[in-house]
Every structure is written in C-alpha cells, then in structure tokens.
C-alpha cells in the first residue's frame, strides 16, 4: 500500500524523499484517531501547540478545501508542500508541472488566504479586523484595532477599492524574505 502511495505522490508536483513521505505518513496516521484514512478538524485541534496558536483555526482551515470536512493524506501533503524550502526546486525541473507549490508566489498566496476569510480574493477591512482580533485577543481596544486596520489598508491599497488584492499584498511584502519565513526544514 505504501509504495503505491509513494508513486502517486511522485507523479504530483511535489517530489519528496522516501523517508520524508514515510515520516509524514506516520504522523498523519497518528493524528488520525478515527483510523478512517482522513483527518477532521477535531484531529488537528487535538494538537496542543496548534490549539494555543491564535491563528490555529485559520491554519486548520487551510487544509480543508471549500465545503469539505475531511482531508486525506494527499490533501495533507499538498498543503504541507507549500512549506518546502525553495532550494529543493533545483532538483526538480519538470517543465510540465507549472509553478511548484512552494514557490514564493504560492507561499504568499497561502498567507493571503489566511487573511481572506470568505475566499473572494480580496482582504476587506472587516476581514482584516477579524484576523487582527484573533491575534491580539482582548488586549487591544476596538478603536485602536480599527485604526491599525485603516492604516494598513491605506498603505497597501493602490487602486482605491478599500481592500487589499493579492497583487497589492505581494507588493507590500516584496522586501520580506518569504522563502525563509514560510519554510520548514526536515532534519534528515
């Protein structure tokens, strides 16, 4: 069963080493308490370090495609593939696969989607406020938070529609080392 899985994965756009797949499959299996080959939101929330992360729910949401409640191993790997370090791409120059999932643009898209609650490809003031509220809890007043949100939109918004599109988002973060901040390195 495992080698079939291996082959399927190698055909997709993220080549991972054999041992890394084995390890991640082990991890997937240990998270899957119901042993039905798929993870639910509760399975993720059982991880204490994730449960105390202020953006834990948003990150969990990123694993589940629109309207679905279960994610299988393929989906799990697909989302994790965004966090592969960028250097690994040199080994895989597959012209047909298009842009790899762990490119700078796709990493930025992942982060953008954490802000974009209703998945309409725009971060509205409301959405920004909600995410800010998740990050600060009860420690900052509504007015202060509102002014932070206004200032952020003002600085990012170039076409005057009072919301941040993906290209505006990319422009604001063009000097940030996204590749390093959004990558996870395997030790072995």
């Amino acid at each position: 069963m495992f080698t079939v899985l291996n082959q399927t994965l190698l055909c997709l756009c993220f080549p991972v080493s054999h041992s890394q797949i084995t390890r991640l499959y082990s991890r997937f299996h240990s998270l899957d308490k119901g042993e039905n080959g798929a993870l639910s939101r509760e399975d993720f929330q059982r991880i204490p370090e994730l449960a105390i992360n202020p953006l834990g729910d948003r990150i969990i949401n990123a694993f589940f495609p629109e309207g679905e409640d279960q994610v299988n191993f393929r989906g799990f790997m697909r989302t994790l593939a965004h966090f592969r370090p960028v250097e690994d791409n040199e080994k895989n120059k597959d012209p047909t696969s298009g842009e790899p999932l762990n490119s700078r643009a796709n990493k930025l898209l992942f982060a953008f989607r954490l802000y974009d609650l209703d998945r309409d490809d725009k971060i509205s003031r409301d959405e920004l406020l909600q995410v800010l509220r998740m990050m600060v809890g009860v420690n900052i007043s509504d007015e202060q938070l509102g002014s932070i949100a206004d200032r952020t939109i003002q600085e990012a918004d170039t076409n005057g529609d009072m919301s941040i599109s993906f290209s505006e988002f990319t422009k604001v973060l063009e000097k940030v080392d996204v590749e390093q901040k959004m990558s996870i390195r395997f030790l072995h």
Partner: protein
Amino acid sequence: MESYLFPFDSLICMLLGISFTVWFTLLLVFIIVPAIFGVSFGIRRVYMKSLIKLFEWATLRMERGAKEKNQHLYKPYSNGIIAKEPVSLEQEIQEMRRGSAEPEFDMSDIFYFCRRGVESIVDDEVTKRFTAEELESWNLLTRSNYNFHHISTRLTALWGMGVLIRYGFLLPLRVTLAFTGVGLLVVLTSIVGLFPNGRMKNYLSDKVHLMCYRICVRALTAIITYHDSENKPKNGGICVANHTSPIDVIILASDGCYAMVGQVHGGLMGVIQRAMVKACPHIWFERSEVKDRHLVAKRLSDHVADESKLPILIFPEGTCINNTSVMMFKKGSFEIGCTVYPVAIKYDPRFGDAFWNSSKFGMVNYLLHMMSSWAIVCSVWYLPPMSRMEGEDAVQFANRVKAAIARKGGLADLLWDGGLKRGKVKEVFKEEQQKLYSKVLVGSSEDRSRS
C-alpha cells in the same frame, strides 16, 4: 480394549505428574526462594545480554538487506524530525521590522504564527508522548514493527522462534508466577493483619510485601538496576517518581517499603487493596473523596507526620507518559511541606515497551503484552532528598523536582500537562500568546509616541 488403555493412562498420568513436579521444583528453587531472600542467580542478566547481541545482529542484517536494494533503512527519530528555531515571538517580529519608521502592524506578522502552526502539525512536543516510543531498530516483536522492511528469511525464522519461546514458555511461566505472587500477597498480608500492632507486625509486613513484589518482578522478567541506594526514601517523607505504567509501583516497592496512595477499586484490585491495608497503613481514597483537595492533603500530611509510618509513593504527573519525557507535576503533593525524595525511572524500550496506553489497551491486554515481551529492563535512580526553599511556592518546587528527575533519567522536561492526553488545552495559554503579541504591537506604538 480397556486393558490396552489402562497402562497408557497410568503412563501418561505418571509423566504428567513428573513433569509438573519438576516444573514446580525448578520454579521454587530458581525463582521463589531467591525472591524470598532477595538474592539473584543472575540468569536474567545473562538472558538480557544474549538478547542484545541478537538485536544487534538483526539490525546488521536489515541494514545489509537495505544496502543490497539500494535503499535507506527507515530510522525513526524521537528527537524531532524538523528543524525548529527557538526564536521567540518578539525576536522574530523585531527582525521583520526593517528600520525604525514602521507601522505598528505589518501584514508579514502572520508568517510567524503560520509557520509555528504548521510546524506543530508536522511534529509537536506533546501528542507523541502519549504513544509508545519508536525504536531505533527492530526487536523482533511484531508490535514494534513500524515500517521496518528488508526482513530476510533468517530474521523471520528467528522471529517465529521468538514467538514460540515467548508465548509457549515465557508467558505461562510468568502468568503462574503472577498468580503466585498476588495470591501470596493477599493471603500473607491478611495473616500479618491478625498480629497486634507493634514492631513485630511492621517487620513481618515489610518482609511479606518485599517478597511478594519480588515474585511479581520475576513474573515480568524485570531486570532492574538501582542506582544511589543511599538516597532511598525514609519514613516521614514523600517519594515522587515519573509515571510510565502501573508496573512502576512493583519496581519501586520491590526494593523498599512504601505506603501506597490510590483510589479504592472493586474486583480483584479491591481485594488486594483491602488485604494490603491490614498489614500496614496505605492510603486509599473513595472516589468521592478524591475531588476534595483539602481532605486529600490532610490525610497525606497526617500520614507524613507520623514517623512510624512508611514513606508515601506518589506519581505527580497523574497519568502514564511514554517515558521519553516528564510532564507537569501536580502541585498537591508539594504543598504538604515535608521532605521529597525524587526517583527517576527509565525503561529500556528494546526489550519490551512498558508504557500503558490506556486509551488503546485495557489493563488485561496491557499485562498480556508485558508478559509476552522479551523482558522489562529499567534503571532506577534515587535522587538526593529535596525540600521547599524559602520564597518558593509549590509550583516552583514541583518544577525544580521535575527538572532534577528529567535530568537524571535523560528525559525531556516539558511544562505541558499530562492531562492533555484526554482533555483539551486550557484557553488561558492561547490568551497568553495573544497578550504577548499585543505587547509587541502596542509597545512599538508607545515608542513612536514618545519619539
């Protein structure tokens, strides 16, 4: 017809009789009598050394098999599979603020939380403590075979023989011993209970307890090494240890006499508890009393104040952890204000996994697993006694003791609560994270208004 069967019958009976007699004599001579006197023939250590050689050979075989097929042997790493930088929230966010004229909030702040979150999904410090530790190499037990491939025919044959030996010879032997040990405990402690209170009774009770626990130790083929016995717990103190399984009790109690603490159970456990308490005072709580923390504390302090009573044995983690780490110690036993004798217990997982995964296996299943493993090998370290220092509260004291135990046993020292095995993490920890981040945001605005 019948005349043919009679000689066979009597022959069979005779053979059975002889084999049983031989069996029981061997048992008595090699196991029970040494247990009574606390001596050992050293058979178990020889057994352990031969097993180690066997496992090393098996690993070499598997590595050779892997090299032939040009693949890598799967190696589990319990120390973590991804590189986690120990950078705090403030540090990372300061780094991302390029220069001084910064907005209070930067859209890139989200990267920190995002990466930490995904890191914890791939590998977190807590959930892996509640399942059996993965072994570096296979120990010829099916139950510890995670992804070990390249198992040649010879290895399979060895494994088959292992199964025969473990289930055909060792398991019946151990079960017999276990029944003997428990049976003797119940009977003898009840007899000792008939004596009037005094030095004679205490002496007999100690001897009886030690003997029965030693038989139980042999029933598990437990090979225990005790270190620093000069620090053994004395009367009027509390002994704390890290908890991996119910067997911890047997391991500690076969080397010293303790007063046990626990909830009253029904069934066989209840019978044992009632018998034990006749011989010497143990502390059993009714289920309803367990919730009342003051009552619990009072009973413990009363016991400790009486110098003639044995030291109390407590496991402050409150639940079984898989012996790779020590989790939060509950502060109850550290509030009593007496000397604490820490003990570190470390099992060698190659011979048999002692961890009781109570959500997966019931007690009977667990005991069967124990008795059909190769052996239980562990080391016990008695640490020097500790007391609460001036200005230290119970929680700090508990953490200090925990750190000492973790250091000695080579275990990871975690602040997380063992109760997370079943329960959810408290909201207050998330609120702490939010507070930290708010400080970073608000802090920078204060600086700006000052400048």
